[in-house]
């Protein structure tokens, strides 16, 4: 996919990078504006992220700060004990109402850091201390950016030459190419079409995502399925049961590496921004319970929602592949 950006802000120091030229070559019609530092645009106070979402801008920058971070405790670690994420881009060209990025950032504009080699250098420092589990598509969807940026394939190449690195690339996109390698995991987030149509704007349909999953499996890639977050909608039992039918029928689950299941949860601090970004969305206006700093569905509701998917997957023989978020 090749997103349209009305404006592209370019840090002066980013201009000399090859990736900058590559990206700009896709956008001859966009207005280009030179900037000193990406934070001058990205971090402006009180931006109207809902309005920006209708006309996103792209920011090309050099990250001279920290590049790899510890993931929050609420994130599924897939039994790895601890995992890290790399912030080689921030924000997403998709527009999911419930996305934590809308809560974390006060803007819908997308940043791509063009100095990827510096990320690899920092990664190598971590690898000196032992194996590293790294999510490279955490604060963004690199698959969705692959039409304009080469970062997904650069990360794949880097992982291929560093066997101690386990790389997770999470996406909702219809990525065309995957790499078959033991240490690269393609994590596909799947949702019922009712949820996609209502809350996951600009993302591919379930059929397209399933086709992408099957292409990846046929290519011999490591595939993770993420039924996370499950989003509450009216008639969710019917909706998620139909969804489970489709997944079980259309995907060879035996070939899937593992499956993550979890209901929507978000830091209480982010919910305010999220509601500002999507002021009419029932996905974020739901009257959540507050538990230990996180907004969650009421316990009975989340147990019922989880139960539908978990039971169906267990009955389909996938019990040993399930990672269930509480």
């Amino acid at each position: 996919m090749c997103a349209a950006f009305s404006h592209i802000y370019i840090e002066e120091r980013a201009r000399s990078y090859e990736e900058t030229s590559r990206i700009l070559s896709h956008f001859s019609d966009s207005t280009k504006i030179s900037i000193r530092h990406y934070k001058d645009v990205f971090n402006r106070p009180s931006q109207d992220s809902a309005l920006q979402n209708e006309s996103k801008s792209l920011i090309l920058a050099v990250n001279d700060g920290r590049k790899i971070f510890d993931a929050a405790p609420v994130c599924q670690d897939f039994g790895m004990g601890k995992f890290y994420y790399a912030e080689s881009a921030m924000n997403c060209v998709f527009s999911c109402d419930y996305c934590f990025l809308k809560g974390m950032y006060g803007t819908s504009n997308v940043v791509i850091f063009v100095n990827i080699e510096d990320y690899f250098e920092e990664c190598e420092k971590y690898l000196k201390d032992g194996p590293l589990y790294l999510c490279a598509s955490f604060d963004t969807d690199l698959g969705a950016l692959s039409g304009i940026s080469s970062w997904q394939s650069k990360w794949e190449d880097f992982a291929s030459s560093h066997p101690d690195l386990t790389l997770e690339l999470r996406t909702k996109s219809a990525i065309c190419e995957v790499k078959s390698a033991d240490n690269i995991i393609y994590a596909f987030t799947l949702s019922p079409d009712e949820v996609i149509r209502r809350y996951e704007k600009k993302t591919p349909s379930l059929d397209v995502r399933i086709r992408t999953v099957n292409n990846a499996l046929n290519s011999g890639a490591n595939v993770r399925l993420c039924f996370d977050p499950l989003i509450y909608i009216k008639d969710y039992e019917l909706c998620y049961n139909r969804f489970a039918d489709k997944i079980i029928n259309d995907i060879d689950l035996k070939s899937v590496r593992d499956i993550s299941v979890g209901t929507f949860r978000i830091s209480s601090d982010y919910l305010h921004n999220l509601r500002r970004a999507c002021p009419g969305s029932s996905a974020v206006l739901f009257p959540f319970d507050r538990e230990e700093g996180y907004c969650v569905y009421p316990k009975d509701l989340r147990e019922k929602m989880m139960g539908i998917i978990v039971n169906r997957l267990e009955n389909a023989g996938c019990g040993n592949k399930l990672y269930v978020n509480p």
Partner: protein
Amino acid sequence: MVSDDLEIILTGIGKVNAAFACGRMFPMGLTRNDLKADIVINIGTCGARDLSGLFIVNKITDEATGRDFYPDIIRVSGVPEASLVTVDEVKTDPDPGVLYEMEASAIYQALSKLISPDRMIFLKVVSDSGDVNGITTEYVNDLIKSHLPEIKRIISSVREGTGKEASISNDDLYERLYASTSMRVHIDELIRYASSLGIDGRKLFAEAGIDEVSSRASGKEVITRVRGILTHLH
């Protein structure tokens, strides 16, 4: 005030005058939230070496401080964009491709405390190329007049794209439910959620027994009942 929803303020020349005018524009004590539906359009002339016509500004540099500011160009389309430098004295040797004037950076800085970057729109008409001799009031008036149709079009399109948010007061519910501050937050949250589902939340409160409420405790029970209905709609 030229109409119920449009006010014109003359800033005068230079950053101090511009900042002072911004200060007069909004009474003391107003917050960003109070002004969330307001839009400020700065219209003025500027110098440029090789540009002519009307521009919308996408970058403002304050020459004295070196600071840059970026109005968000979302609400206006179809107008040529340019970057602008705010100077303290007339720029007699302008760089190519850049607009020069004497107020924008001060206006942006003064208003950014209250107005979001998409709601500050800077429209500049090129009046000269650095030589201001012979620039008279009449000339400037005629120049702006010649661009009035376009300026009016921009103001109209900006107006169409905005508007005060209609808000319904829940004060009567607060009173009837003996609501504390936190209960009020819950009431508002439930009504907004109901609205997002196309349900009349206030009607739900009526159906959940608001007429029987005689204390804060029974008010809380009604809120709990409404919440139960809304979170288990299946």
